[in-house]
């Protein structure tokens, strides 16, 4: 087929992708090149690989499977507090790992709320530790993400299509086959791949909820190789394994998710005529809300009493974290928008792949690699904040692309020809059509990136600037100094700040999720 003209060049996006790939693979290479005497895989590594894959596949499949009915219910129902609930969906995702673990176990643990109720009625407490506990925790983290991705898919279906379906008298099942199934087929593979990749690098959560060394993941082995064994070769090898697995998952997702968008719509407010059974929808929304909000309220409750114990210096760290989050969001958009445009005009597997690798890259490897690379030129700790912002952006990139690419693709397919005929090319198309058309997605992606950056301990711990600490680092330090209550207060502060940033950015771009 003859190559058709495109309104925007894919060159900047390809360049951005190479930059990201260079960051991830370059740091890996830097680590690998420092190898002294390395060991290959040991039998315990194979066990770790097996466990890592099992939990990641289960977590991804269950998260996405549960997210479909929840997103569907949210897409169909309007109720007071709906937009707040959608904003809160971002929350589990942004908590520092240690805070999330404590919150989860306050609800699901041996001495958790649910066990308390069970014991009160004479039953035995729940046994949370094990593979099912790992999966539960990962679903807690990723169900909201999956729900938002799928909900967005629903909202990108032009209301004209639903109108047509309603006119044709499609009931639930027919509507599902006609409109929703094709949409899901387009969204789900990407969502699965992203969550699989996130769970692949899980470490503290998997170990703690898994109940012991049975739940050893590759990331733990990488950590061990870096610290206790100082075996950089093994660390690089294991990290390369993670990257390969992620790349394989990403390729599979790309193959599966090929499909066209829904064609033009006229921005009519979304209105649905398929009432369906409200009972099921209400049930799904309530269950998901409970599952997500209970651990969050545990975090909030323990945070309240500690809020007044939060030392002033932690507030300073909060400001630093906000600054890093904003910088990280700007970097993210500078990378993600051209990449999304590149993918939209032509299938660039390289760009998509570079986009997802950030997830599977071990933060330890990136951090150490950057340290090795930067050290001959500058004092790494002087660059702690810019490097943290950069790495946080790279880690948020996969999410941003999942959010931006479908919208970019639709925009190009809907408006590309018209733009071309009007000589709107390159920057003009980018700024006059692509960005305005993608505002909601840009807002969502920016909000997510900012919140992720807020909660991530990131590489700042490795770069150790003695003068500047971020909020998550200070929370960890409070815990290390026995000040668990103050740390809980700090975690609440973090939660509130992250949610506020997320809400402002997401709200700024959102037209579709009106309550």
């Amino acid at each position: 087929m003859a190559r058709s003209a495109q309104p925007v060049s894919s060159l900047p996006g390809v360049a951005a992708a190479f930059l990201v790939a260079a960051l991830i693979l370059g740091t890996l290479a830097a680590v690998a090149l420092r190898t002294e005497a390395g060991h290959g895989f040991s039998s315990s590594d194979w066990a770790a690989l097996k466990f890592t894959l099992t939990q990641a596949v289960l977590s991804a499949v269950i998260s996405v499977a549960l997210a479909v009915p929840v997103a569907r219910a949210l897409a169909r129902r309007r109720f007071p507090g709906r937009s707040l609930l959608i904003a809160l969906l971002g929350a589990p995702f942004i908590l520092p790992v240690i805070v999330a673990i404590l919150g989860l176990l306050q609800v699901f643990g041996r001495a958790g709320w649910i066990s308390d109720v069970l014991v009160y009625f004479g039953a035995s407490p729940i046994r949370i530790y094990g593979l099912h506990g790992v999966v539960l925790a990962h679903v807690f983290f990723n169900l909201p993400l999956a729900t938002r991705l799928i909900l967005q898919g629903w909202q990108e279906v032009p209301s004209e299509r639903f109108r047509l379906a309603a006119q044709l008298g499609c009931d639930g099942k027919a509507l599902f086959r006609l409109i929703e199934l094709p949409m899901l087929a387009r969204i789900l593979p990407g969502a699965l791949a992203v969550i699989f990749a996130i769970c692949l690098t899980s470490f503290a959560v998997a170990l703690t909820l898994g109940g012991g060394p049975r739940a050893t993941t590759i990331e733990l082995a990488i950590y061990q190789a870096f610290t206790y064994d100082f075996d950089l070769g093994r660390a690089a090898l294991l990290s390369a394994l993670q990257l390969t697995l992620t790349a394989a998952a990403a390729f599979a997702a790309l193959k599966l998710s090929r499909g066209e968008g829904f064609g033009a719509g006229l921005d009519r407010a979304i209105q649905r005529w398929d009432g369906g059974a409200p009972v099921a929808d209400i049930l799904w929304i309530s269950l998901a809300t409970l599952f997500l909000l209970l651990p969050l309220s545990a975090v909030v409750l323990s945070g309240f009493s500690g809020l007044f114990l939060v030392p002033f210096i932690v507030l300073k760290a909060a400001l630093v974290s906000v600054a890093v989050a904003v910088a990280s969001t700007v970097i993210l958009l500078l990378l993600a928008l051209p990449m999304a445009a590149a993918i939209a005009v032509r299938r660039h597997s390289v760009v998509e792949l570079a986009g997802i690798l950030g997830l599977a890259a071990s933060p330890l490897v990136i951090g150490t690699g950057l340290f090795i690379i930067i050290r001959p030129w500058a004092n790494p700790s002087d660059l702690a904040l810019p490097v943290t912002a950069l790495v946080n952006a790279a880690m948020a990139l996969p999410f941003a692309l999942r959010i931006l690419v479908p919208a970019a693709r639709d925009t190009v397919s809907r408006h590309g020809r018209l733009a071309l005929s009007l000589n709107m090319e390159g920057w003009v198309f980018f700024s006059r059509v692509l960005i305005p058309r993608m505002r909601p997605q840009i807002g969502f992606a920016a909000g997510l990136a900012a919140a992720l950056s807020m909660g991530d301990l990131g590489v700042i711990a490795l770069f150790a600037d003695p003068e500047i600490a971020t909020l998550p680092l200070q929370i960890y330090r409070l815990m290390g100094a026995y000040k668990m209550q103050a740390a809980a207060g700090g975690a609440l502060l973090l939660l509130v700040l992250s949610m506020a940033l997320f809400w402002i950015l997401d709200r700024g771009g959102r037209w579709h999720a009106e309550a």
Partner: protein
Amino acid sequence: MKHLLIAAGLLTATSAMAAEKPQLTVYTYDSFVSDWGPGPKVEEAFEAVCECDLKLIGVEDGAALLSRIRLEGKNSDADVVLGLDTNLVETAKKTGLFAPHTVEAQYTLPVEWADETFVPYDWGYFAFVHKAGETVPTNFRELAKSDAKILIQDPRSSTPGLGLLLWVKAAYGDEAADVWADLSDNIVTVTKGWSEAYGLFLDGEADMVLSYTTSPAYHLIAEEDNSKTTAAFEEGHYMQVEVAAKLAGTDQPELADKFLNFMVSDAFQTIIPTTNWMYPAVPPKGGLPAGFDTLQVPEKALFFKPEEAAAARREALPEWLEALSQ
């Protein structure tokens, strides 16, 4: 981004101004430099006597600290490393990156210390912390038979976790694997680091958590809470000794020696108990803070010499993995 760069620029400018004085760079673990650790007070006390600028850089924990030094190698920016524990000393020595010290001090460690390179600054006993007033097992065998639930840390990612591994190995030798197998149903879970385990314990997730005999002192002194205590184990308690050393490649050898000597002096040692919540290596003139007298003192100290610890770990870790992976 622009502001960050400006901020970074300002920082460089201020450190350049301070550079008229000689600068001593000390790498240590992160909790040492935190605002609630010994770092700020130590910096103030040393700068009052040294005519220098003391720069404390925090690196996660002891194991990560040693990795950082090995990563930087011969031209490390560090002059002194503070915060390795005895289980890392042998590996550290083999790197050849450290130089002998000039310190002479009267340590009150329960074990003999005569290392030419590494200077101890504090120490403690590992112990299981539990709520006061509860009846708890008095040894590992009894613990294994009981219904008591414990939280421990992973020896592959945590210093206390490694301490427990060596504790059981020191107490039971070839039977350690059996003990672990029996303990497996008592272990609620294994965490990445100390903070997760201790946090879960405070939330009531288990009866006991692996920590130090000095942990109750924090609750007593800082929170006026005497509800925590430690279980005395008949086998004895494994010791952790934290040490510091001068880098062979330092460009401030005299200042580094000065710091190591300062470290065993009263000014430094009085800071340790209520910031690092460990026993000082040299008893402060004013004695230990009130509250430390209430702590359990184990009858027997278990300890692998640095040269034995690495071999013990190599043997014990696979046993632990095997026993707990069933």
